[in-house]
């Protein structure tokens, strides 16, 4: 109920009721997109990756933010490797 699942908006099915067809891992379902339209025309939502909760798209997945989080993790990994290497050489 609270976890949600990512999917991609492939079509607008009912503009008046703000309903769109969302493809979730190959399964297509009608989803309410009222929360993510914002100031845009509704057709502009097609192609968006969204997080779907109980039949409602609740958030557009922010690719830049996702990339930033992953970048921090990569950096942390590199830093850890360096620290490990320093420790190993310190013992030598």
């Amino acid at each position, binding site marked *: 109920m609270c976890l949600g699942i990512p999917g991609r908006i492939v079509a607008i099915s009912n503009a008046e009721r703000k309903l769109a067809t969302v493809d979730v891992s190959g399964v297509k379902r009608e989803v*309410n997109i009222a929360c993510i339209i914002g100031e845009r025309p509704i057709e502009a939502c097609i192609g968006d990756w969204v997080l779907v*909760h*109980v039949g409602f798209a*609740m958030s557009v997945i922010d690719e830049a933010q996702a990339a930033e989080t992953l970048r921090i993790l990569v950096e942390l990994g590199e830093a850890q490797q360096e620290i490990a290497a320093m420790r190993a050489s310190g013992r030598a």
Partner: protein
Amino acid sequence: MQYVDEFRDPEKAASLIAAINDLTKTLALHRDHPLHIMEVCGGHTHAIFRYGIANMLPPEIEFVHGPGCPVCVLPMGRVDDCVAIAETPGVIFTTFGDAMRVPGSKKSLLQAKADGADIRMVYSPLDALELARANPTREVVFFGLGFETTMPSTAFTVLQASAEGLMNFSLFCNHITIIPTMRAILESPELRLDGFLGPGHVSMVIGTRVYDFIAEQYKKPLVVAGFEPLDVLQSVWLVLKQIAEGRCEIENQYGRIAPPDGNKAALSAVEQVFELREFFEWRGLGSIDHSGVRMREAYARFDAERKFAMPSLKIEDPKACECGDVLKGLIKPWQCKVFGTACTPQTPLGALMVSSEGACAAYYQYGDLEGLRDKRHADAA
């Protein structure tokens, strides 16, 4: 799938665990006095067990499982109310599947269904609306529960019913709200917490600024966290880093989903349909001021509470059930006397054993049950 696999990368997990171990050493903690990090949200509890995250961390760090599983905190009396509505002639009662097996004082919704009540599991409140359109001579009731994550979906559904003039749809509103709940946790004298993993999807709706008081007034670090293994590990690392550096701030690890100001359209729908209740009764935690919402007068004709006669009784949990103490983090699920014996996911006594987001069900499903039983015997000896 978009940004799911990327956040399950074992290599990155290994470096995060190494970083967490390093910070734990810096903090010079003792395993008899571990750091207590509360994951507020049941989704995190589920992730922590599903991916075995607690076992990846050093023993000096312990998770305290918070009250953020809406099904688990539902008091028995409310389930009785659901059954009473569902057994009213002419009613189609719709609910998320999670709530079907929560025990009431006499029966669960699943048992009521077996006894002949027309109870249907739905994926979305919109499915309940569709049932109302298709069955104009029946009254379709949707059982709305959850924190701010699901609250907007229910609000939009009521707004849609109102726009269409559907007269045979109503909502039994049991939505709860996170901020007063967190304040109650922070005010509880029994709880010693060092930091929080903040609920990712509640924050997607309400934003992250609303937690500022936790850092400012209560001086606790909080990191809004996602639900993949790397999200949880990185958030634990960020909490530890704050503690090690003597900071207490609200940080957002889940920026890809949760914006600082939340979701404007969702918040405005919620504001339009719901208002705060004076108090709401929680299983195990008792009554918490302003922790629930009800429907505004303007939407009274969609309000099941106004439409139906319900017992609305306060029913105590069974004596053997220690859900309350588990919910408050005072005991671990396996320390409850009936855990895994009289109370299992097949025959739950308490709500924490019902939902997959409940701490007891998570321990039962993913925990080392033999090991836990040995530990319990050792504790008792």
